């Protein structure tokens, strides 16, 4: 095992250790934390952010950022919901929602690669366009009320485990394989590490970067399906600021905002840390205002220690 991979493992174990320590602490502070029903509850609540954060991790690994994911959740959600209301079969409606997300992502990617726009600007534009489109499409009103088979995407249980948790695990398993075992995955790291060098060594940079944004849009569509089924309603104002939660989960999980470094398993743990924190603070009955302070401190703290450690390594 190389030194670099040892370091990576260490980083990951550190994040996992943080999550476990948090769990131990909450177990000590409240009897309601360490119960099967609460743990499943936390994982179910985390699933939406976790799924969006997979796409965000790919984008950030490639050296970009995607601010549009929250709006894409809203747009994909209302497209899917309207399709269902129009009588489309569930697979067709799901596909319509997923494709909406993927298409918008593809536009993001094209603006970044072909249009040479900074990702911040391209996705900021999409954030507004998709939100506006969702509002226009629905006249600002939520689209709600679906039958039980669609809702089972969120309410279903397989051997006690909520379906959203299974979806999340499946998404992470696939994402992990893609990043570690495929050429696409290696190129994403390469582009994020040094785009110019990748281009010179023959990596089709534009194509792969575009696909990364499309992927981020696609998983946003998937998150929209779970959210819509969970609330039995698709709101055009849904998903506001979800992009920030996804970015937070990604960076807590150890992915560098500069690109080229990080793993999806870290992101999953990062999302769980945020979910467990919110859950624990609710269980303890801590003021909502203080909760925001704590979550902010954890985000900054996690990245601060990373950067301090890196400075330490360089000496």
């Amino acid at each position, binding site marked *: 095992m190389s030194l670099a991979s040892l370091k990576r493992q260490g980083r990951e174990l550190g994040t996992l250790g943080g999550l476990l*320590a948090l769990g131990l602490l909450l177990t000590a502070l*409240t009897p309601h934390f360490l119960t099967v029903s609460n743990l499943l509850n936390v994982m179910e609540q985390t699933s939406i952010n976790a799924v969006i954060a997979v796409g965000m991790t790919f984008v950030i690994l490639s050296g970009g950022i995607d601010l549009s994911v929250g709006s894409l959740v809203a747009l994909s959600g209302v497209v899917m919901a309207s399709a269902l209301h129009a009588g489309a079969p569930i697979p067709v409606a799901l596909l319509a929602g997923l494709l909406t997300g993927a298409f918008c992502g593809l536009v993001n990617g094209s603006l970044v690669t072909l249009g040479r726009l900074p990702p911040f600007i391209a996705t900021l534009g999409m954030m507004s366009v998709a939100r506006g489109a969702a509002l226009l499409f629905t006249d600002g009103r939520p689209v*709600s009320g679906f039958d039980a088979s669609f809702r089972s995407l969120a309410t279903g249980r397989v051997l006690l485990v909520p379906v959203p948790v299974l979806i999340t695990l499946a998404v992470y398993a696939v994402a992990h394989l893609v990043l570690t075992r495929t050429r696409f995955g290696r190129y994403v790291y390469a582009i994020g590490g040094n785009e110019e060098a990748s281009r010179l060594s023959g990596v089709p940079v534009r194509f792969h970067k575009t696909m990364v944004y499309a992927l981020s849009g696609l998983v946003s569509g998937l998150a929209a399906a779970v959210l819509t089924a*969970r609330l039995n309603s698709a709101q055009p104002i849904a998903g506001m600021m979800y992009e920030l939660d996804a970015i937070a989960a990604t960076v807590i999980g150890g992915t560098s905002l500069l690109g080229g470094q990080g793993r999806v398993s870290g992101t999953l743990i990062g999302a769980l840390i945020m979910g467990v*924190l*919110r859950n624990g603070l609710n269980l303890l*009955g801590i003021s909502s205002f203080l909760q925001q302070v704590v979550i902010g401190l954890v985000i900054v703290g996690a990245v601060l*220690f990373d950067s301090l*450690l890196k400075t330490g390594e360089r000496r």
Partner: protein
Amino acid sequence: MRFRCRTAVGLAALLALGACQRGAPPATAKPRVALVLKTLNSPFFIDMQKGATAAAEKQGLDLVVQAAEREVDVDKQMQIIENLVQTGVKALLVTPSGSREVVPAIAKANAAGIPVVILDTKVDPAAAAEAGIKTVTFVGSDNLEGGRLAGQQMVQVTGGRAKVAVLEGIPGHETGDSRLKGFKEAIAKSPGIAIVASQPANWERDLGFNVFQNMLQAHPEIDAVFACNDMMALGAVEAIAVAGKLGRIKVIGFDAVDDARKAIASGAMVASVAQFPGEMGRVAVESAARILKNETVPDDQRVRIELVTAATLAPPAAGAARP
């Protein structure tokens, strides 16, 4: 190394908080009741919290108050309710962020056998019936009646002739829809009153300003405004001031917040409909206390509302009998 550092951050933050929290719970064996508000960053919900907290003290209940960061975040509200259900609270008091979206969360409380009291915003009856959820009681203002009061006042101050602009709340919110419905009912009898423009400004002051400014561009003849809450009404007042038409356009709002009362006193607004959120908080907590004693509570409890105008504002200043 990394492990220790990361852990230290989390531990330090939480331990500090845990320590702060320690004082209250163990000392009391009081039944724990939770109040989930839409948000805690508006005076309306802060008043509601105050009313509820005072009532909880009197009733010997341990009240936990939680709210999402943003009023529109229905999923965050659902998470809070799910988490509170895990702690086995004895009763759950909720101001739904979405009339339909709150239904799955209430279903989870029902499944755990926790009685639910709804405040301020009604649960969509169709969605509730479909999911088969049960709530014990609704405590809130009669928004339809409030809208009627506003409409009657509009007829009175304009002498039955007006071109009205309407600023709506977030579409799909029961509260705004009911207010507007009541308002339209009340003005329907006066054919001289016409609504020439009606658009949502999402309850917000700055959006109220912009939307109304645009309406005034399209319809310079507008001489009256009905805003479904005071924040949007106050935004419209600013736009009217910019247009130099202050006093000539009659503005009626809803909620009678402090700024609106000042605007009414100065003549920038003609009226607002006062709700009593503190009362709602009190009645809801008292209902919870009665539920815990296995007493029955009425399934619909309306808190008083009243029209606030320059005329009604004068008496309390003169020391009239008002609590």
